């Protein structure tokens, strides 16, 4: 275990990870000028292309018998990866640069202060049923998530005031306000482009433009697909067949990889990751992304409505110890705001908040003493209860009393999160600053789990969204990160890496960090060497 100190941020690198995967630090070093997620560079990276053939078998930690093919219901890694196997979207995150690049769109253009967005569609793209994609399909696919829909993408698309086609290969969106990041929103993973009939898509037919044609889908068990002969990308989708098996139990998953039953698995049990890496023929992969763990406080509830209490608690935590003991070094410390080092406008000059019992004591005394309950369950994130207990220990040294309440995993999201005054939570993160802030920090947002409202912050949010000048935008987002860090309701102790493994038969290029498993697009991007 080696610790590197850069910009005041302790960055912990696990050097036992296989030698081939040398550098994950690039993200935290801030080298990457990427837009969204981050990249790693691996030893066999940057091969010019892959090789055709074989059946890739993946063992995935998610998957439930209640899963469905309907894009409006995608919520776990199993359905998200299946989605990227059989379907495409208007844009995708480029693995090497992290930028949003056109996928089913050929190009896009924002005019009128980013209030009008024009998407020029790629021509001659064929669906699995033989139909050629056109503007009607795109509009119908978007409409599936708008109006009376339970789709999580619905709130994202509230800003769309109208949608129309201009010829067969162009769709024009009018927004209610300027949004310089609308290309990211329009490429949300839920909004898969599917063939339409009479202005409607059949959400559960499993038909898309993707690199693989669905053959079998048994919810919670397996998914099988074969290569789409007329796939529009010539340098992607190398496998003849892809198979995904749901393996919830971490030990079973690691067994499956070790015995060659599958070629890749996700969500390595961090406690035993170093043992798995020792196994011959197994490569441990690690990517820094936007996933972070938080302890959200309800700022509308006493005592957390007092910023002195919030600051006292923010200073009363040893973040690097949490990274070391809860993440086993597979992550980086957070700075009480949700913007990852890999984000485009991450405020790298913002001083890292350190453990400071004196400051914590000072703010606690200003608030008239702090005695609070922290509700945690491992449903929030693996090791949340341990993290809470460590937190309790750190805070005791500053004279702050934290009582850890262990909550049941079952029903955690409906009964504890956003209900109890202080709890634990995880966020997959969002590719853009605007998206992350709008989702969870804007006053009144439905997932604002700290119930925090700051007028200056909300004002900056709207300014930043419509701003197209990069430098002005950077200044706006820096200030917003500072406000959240100093006034916000969430303690953000750490960003967790995505840790997964493959056999050494699997080849790949630079990997994306916007989702687990190479941006969830490994079916398209990897190959057998």
């Amino acid at each position, binding site marked *: 275990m080696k610790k590197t100190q850069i910009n005041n941020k302790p960055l912990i690198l696990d050097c036992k990870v296989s030698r081939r995967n040398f550098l994950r630090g690039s993200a935290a070093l801030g080298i990457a000028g990427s837009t969204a997620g981050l990249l790693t560079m691996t030893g066999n990276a940057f091969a010019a292309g892959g090789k055709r053939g074989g059946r890739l078998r993946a063992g995935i930690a998610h998957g439930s018998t209640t899963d469905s093919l309907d894009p409006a219901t995608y*919520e776990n890694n199993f359905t998200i990866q299946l989605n990227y196997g059989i379907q495409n979207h208007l844009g995708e995150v480029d693995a090497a640069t992290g930028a949003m690049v056109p996928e089913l769109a050929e190009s896009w253009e924002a005019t009128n202060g980013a209030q009008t967005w024009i998407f020029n569609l790629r021509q001659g793209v064929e669906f699995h049923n033989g139909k050629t994609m056109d503007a009607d399909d795109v509009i119908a696919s978007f409409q599936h998530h708008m109006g009376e829909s339970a789709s999580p993408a619905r709130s994202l698309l509230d800003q769309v005031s109208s949608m129309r086609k201009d010829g067969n290969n162009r769709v024009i969106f009018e927004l209610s306000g300027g949004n310089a990041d609308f290309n990211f929103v329009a490429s949300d993973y839920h909004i898969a482009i599917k063939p339409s009939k009479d202005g409607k898509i059949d959400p559960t037919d499993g038909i898309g433009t993707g690199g693989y044609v669905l053959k079998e889908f048994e919810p919670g068990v397996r998914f099988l697909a074969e290569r789409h002969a007329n796939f529009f990308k010539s340098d992607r989708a190398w496998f003849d067949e892809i198979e995904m098996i749901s393996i919830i139990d971490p030990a079973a998953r690691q067994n499956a990889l070790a*015995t060659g039953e599958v070629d890749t698995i996700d969500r390595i049990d961090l406690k035993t990751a170093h043992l798995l890496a020792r196994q011959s023929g197994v490569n441990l992969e690690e990517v820094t992304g936007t996933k972070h763990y938080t302890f959200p406080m309800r700022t509308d509830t006493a005592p957390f409505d007092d910023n002195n209490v919030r600051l006292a608690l923010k200073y009363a935590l040893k973040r690097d110890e949490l990274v070391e003991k809860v993440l086993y070094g597979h992550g980086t410390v957070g700075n009480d705001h949700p913007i990852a080092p890999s984000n485009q406008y991450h405020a790298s000059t913002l001083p890292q908040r350190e453990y400071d019992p004196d400051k914590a004591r000072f703010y606690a005394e200003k608030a008239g003493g702090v005695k609070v309950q922290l509700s945690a369950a491992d449903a929030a994130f693996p090791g949340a209860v341990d993290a809470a207990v460590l937190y309790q220990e750190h805070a005791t040294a500053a004279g702050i009393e934290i009582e850890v309440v262990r909550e049941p995993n079952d029903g955690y999201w409906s009964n504890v999160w956003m209900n109890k005054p202080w709890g634990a939570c995880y966020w997959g993160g969002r590719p853009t600053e605007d998206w992350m802030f709008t989702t969870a920090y804007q006053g009144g947002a439905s997932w604002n789990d700290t119930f925090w409202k700051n007028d200056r912050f909300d004002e900056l949010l709207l300014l930043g969204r419509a701003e197209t000048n990069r430098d002005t935008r950077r200044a706006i987002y820096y200030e917003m990160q500072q406000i959240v860090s100093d006034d916000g309701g969430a303690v953000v102790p750490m960003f967790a890496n995505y840790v997964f493994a493959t056999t050494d038969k699997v080849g790949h290029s630079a990997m994306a960090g916007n989702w687990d498993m190479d941006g969830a697009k490994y079916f398209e991007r990897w190959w057998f060497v």
Partner: protein
Amino acid sequence: MAQRIALGLLTLFVISLLIAFGVELLPGDLAQEILGQGATPEGLRVLRLQLGLDTPPHIRYLDWLGGMVTGDMGLSLANKRPIAELIGPRLSNTLFLGGFAAMIAIPIALTLGILAALYRNSLYDRGVNIFTLTSISFPEFFIAYILILFFAIKLGWFPGISNISSELSFLDKLYRTLLPAASLTLVVVAHMMRMTRASIINLLSSPYIEMAHLKGIKPLRIITRHALPNALAPIINVIAINLAYLVVGVVIVEVVFVYPGLGQLLVDSVSKRDVPVVQACSMIFASVYIFLNLSADVISIVTNPRLLYPR
């Protein structure tokens, strides 16, 4: 007989009521569980409407009961698939694994039990007892992991997970399910073997066994021809209980070996509050219990002339 079947049906009805009530008591509902962290009040309202969760629970129960009586299990609330279609392949997987484990476990248990009765209090008897009691005392997942460690990882004889699908041949299926079947066998053998031994030994002090001894019959023959038939009733009952366990209690083994059986479906559905699927699975499990108990009673009667021809 008719009375027994009627009682069985009544039990099923009561169970269905209890389960409907129990699931209703769990905090949260399907809409909240599906949306999870992503739930918003608006999303919840729309989803509840789409799922039909706005109708009161007793109406939903009566609807379900009406369907069930006419043989229609209905649709899964979560993914709108027919429940019969969801359950079908999983039920056959579960029965396959249970049947396979029973094929191994029952002959082994009976043989070990008979031999233990024959050589009672010998070194062999003690050894078998220690071994089977040890294996029943370990949690199933531990036994499963030990088997995986040795037979899948160290020796590489068997696959580490039992990933079976319809494209596999019967022999392949047997090969891939051998490890889970072996774990189940280790768990159930002790109970059946001990009962066989105990009920035979119970009879050995009876006068007619003494008579057989005096006639000079060999001990093995005394046990198999004279003692065993009279000891069958309790053994059959224990076998029935263990068979039921092999069908309904295997969820842990299913998880460890990633075997797509019915137990996993039930656990998933409970955690998502998908009531119709929970109900359908529970009905199947309850029916298995009732059916096996009924068969055990019938077989006990058939093997016992005194009960077969009551005065």
